[in-house]
């Protein structure tokens, strides 16, 4: 059975390689096209990584898929939008560069705060009462919470998509040879890298991070060692939601709009990324997300299929990974014990 699956995997890989060589490369796109697509992919991957980390953190500790994570991100996007409108109203975006940068930073922070609030509430209301229940129960609750968040936002803020205004400072970009590099792309990528680094330091170096890893290994033993498990779980949700909130704001700047269901597809993609890297594994989520961003950006042209099938590519990647390497590229590090 196992060798058959491996054989099938090799066949699929060969088929893909053949398709890329025969169709994608034969199209004769210029090199600059591939480079700019790669850059797009990296930017998208950076945002996916921020969201994917939330899935991975929660899964690592609670062994549950936080189905509503994408919607937590969307709420961050909305909070960021309103913060941005506020700065515009105050006139900061017309001020000097320093004010604009400050406003942008505060927008991201506002998005993070909004998401954190949503994340904590979610944990308290929909997940904590269900701890220890069979695994299907929290998943259903998460699906309910996801719908609830989406349609509450729809009812409260209305159907019309909210358009992010990009300040003139970050509008545009520069040319490197034939390749156009937008400033927003660079900013998004740098911000996500900085946040990921911060997360990595928190998890690896801080006391709470150590507690998190202990709880992920074994909840009851961790509790016996004097760790307040409830607190650690809340902290995990705070970390994951904060990253998602930042991701929501960045995605808002990237797509220029947020609306009530704009968290759903990115959420699924980010989950795919987390699985791709090995869910429960923090570096895995980052690698998986960047890879997924690249696959999505390069895939349609490389395989010579219409871009409408972009989402199919992401889902197919998910399916293929789970069939051929269910533990993901880097494996489940945090939840090894429970696998």
């Amino acid at each position, binding site marked *: 059975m196992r060798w058959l699956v491996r054989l099938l995997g090799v066949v699929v890989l060969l088929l893909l390689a053949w398709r890329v060589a025969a169709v994608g490369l034969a199209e004769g796109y210029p090199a600059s096209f591939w480079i700019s697509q790669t850059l797009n992919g990296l930017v998208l991957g950076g945002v996916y990584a921020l969201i994917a980390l939330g899935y991975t953190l929660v899964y690592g500790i609670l062994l549950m898929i936080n189905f509503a994570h994408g919607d937590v991100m969307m709420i961050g996007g909305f909070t960021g939008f309103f913060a941005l409108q506020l700065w515009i109203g105050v006139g900061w975006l017309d001020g000097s560069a320093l004010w604009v940068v400050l406003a942008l930073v505060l927008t991201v922070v506002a998005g993070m705060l909004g998401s954190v609030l949503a994340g904590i509430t979610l944990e308290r209301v929909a997940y904590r009462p269900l701890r220890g229940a069979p695994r299907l129960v929290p998943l259903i609750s998460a699906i309910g919470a996801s719908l609830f968040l989406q349609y509450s936002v729809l*009812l409260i803020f209305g159907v019309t998509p909210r358009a992010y205004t990009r300040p003139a400072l970050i509008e545009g970009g520069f040319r490197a040879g034939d390749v156009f590099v937008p400033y927003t792309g660079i900013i998004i990528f740098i911000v996500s890298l900085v946040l990921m680094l911060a997360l990595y330091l928190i998890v690896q170096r801080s006391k709470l991070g150590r507690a998190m890893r202990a709880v992920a290994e074994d909840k009851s033993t961790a509790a016996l060692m004097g760790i307040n498990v409830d607190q650690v779980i809340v902290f995990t949700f705070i970390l994951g939601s904060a990253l998602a909130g930042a991701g929501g704001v960045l995605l808002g700047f990237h797509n220029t709009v947020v609306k009530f269901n704009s968290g759903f597809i990115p959420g699924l993609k980010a989950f795919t990324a987390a699985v791709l890297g090995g869910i429960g594994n923090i570096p895995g989520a980052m690698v998986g997300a960047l890879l997924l961003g690249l696959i999505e950006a390069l895939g349609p042209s490389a395989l010579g299929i219409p871009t409408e099938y972009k989402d199919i590519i992401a889902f197919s990647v998910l399916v293929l990974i789970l069939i051929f390497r269910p533990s993901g590229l880097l494996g489940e590090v945090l939840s090894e014990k429970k696998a």
Partner: protein
Amino acid sequence: MNRIGMLAARHGLRTGALAFVLLTYLTLIGLPGRLADLAMPVLAGVVAIFFWLVLRRSPQLGGIYGSLGGTALWAGLLAGGFYAVLTAFFVGLLANGVRVQLVFDKIVPQNLAALYAVMPGVLLSGELSPVGWLRQVGLLGLAGVVAALLVAGERRLRRRQLPSLAALRWLPLLLPFVLLAAVIGLGSPAVTFGGNNQGTIRLLLAMLAVGSGIFAARAARPGGGRRVLWALLAAALVGLPFLLDQFQNSVMGIVFIFVMMGLGLNIVVGFAGLLDLGYVAFFSIGAYVYAFLAAPFSSPWLIAQLQGWGLPVSGPLVSFWLALPLTMVVAGLGGVLLGVPVLRLRGDYLAIVTLGFGEIIRLFMLNLSELTNGPRGLLNIAPPTVGGYSLGNPRDIFLLALAGAALIALVANRMDGSRLGRAWVAMREDEDVAQATGIHLVYTKLMAFAIGALFAGLAGQLYAARQTNIFPENFSLFVSIDALSLVIVGGMGSIPGVVLGALALKGLPEVLRGVDEYRIITFAALLVIMMIVRPQGILPSLRRGRELQEQGGSRADQPSVLEALPDSAGESSLAKKER
């Protein structure tokens, strides 16, 4: 203030703050505007119920009525005060010409005016009298008092011995027939397309009759009487379509199509424990296969093919009945095909991959426009016919759905106890142990997927025949979520539960058409609350209910049926183990 007073005050303030959040939420989603002049009393009622639910769970206040009343009053006044300030703030903004609607879609004069029971114009002119604000504080304070009285009364009642109700046990058996009589009494089947209140009430009564019929069928004791009761219930069910009008029948039709689908999913999720989030895939396969057969003229590719073979393209290729085995085979094959790759996956991973499959199939249907006509859909699908008589009207579709659901329920019921059914249960409890006891996992899993898919295909075919036009949007992820939720709400692995779940999740929203906007959030909130309060579902299968009871401990609200079960230690120790 003494210590208990402090405790009461603190508890009260916290409860009040939560109530304020609840009120704010309800205002932001625009509920007051919908309730018009009744807004404030209804909100106060909601808050009273909320307080009651919170207070009855605070054991530290037990028996001390003084502190209980204090707590509730504190909570009510706090919520009322904050709420009055908040609404006054919004009113102030609106009166000064600030367009709050740019941020909060539902903060419009009409919505807020309902809170003060005045005309919207009064708000904008700023002529509002302070009496309105006092009314808010007063009503919410009153809500606190009412809640305290409720808790106190409930506690007092509980201490008293209630008279035994054993003599009245036959009463629930009568309920479905009483409800049915009410349906008949409420008027003749005139053609009304919803909207009128009497029709809605009839629909609700009809659904309640079906639901209570299921309870009655379950409550009846074994013996000759039970057979008679079941026969009567079946006769009533078959008679129901002839009592309802078109709109009511079409709602019941869709409910029972979802029952068919839910019964199939129940096999996959409830019996075999394979969490499938992409179940809509098989539903859509069934619908599309039938659509291709019955409306080939909608698909450009099929037209070309048929013309190539010199066949006529104007009418359906085969009849509904001939298509049945075909759809079943194709959907079943689809189940096996999608099942093979996920054989090795468990739990959450399986859920996500199946979700991916569901989306992939929908995206293909959307984008393969040569075959499926893309978003424009397949149109003019022929209804089933019998001897030249078309069965396309809502009543006949309802009858067909009833027959289909009954057939599937029968098959599923037989399967539950069969060798295969027991293998599913073993596999659900522990795959490794099941394999060690000689169960062929691959075969067992694939059978679950195939049979589940087959039933969904049937439901899909009937759905296509009912809709006459199908589009890829009809088969979104939400159909999967609906189906899964109705299985879970009804009680996993429980066949009557599926019917109840479908009535609650697909039927009730139709009755609530008037509050269409709030349909999904009500449903979503119910899903979460259900998982917290009663994870085993409305009518749990006996086995499932017991497992959840074991694990959920005191949290789960345990039905009395379960307590009568003999102890089975082996099963529960398996269930306790995480996968």
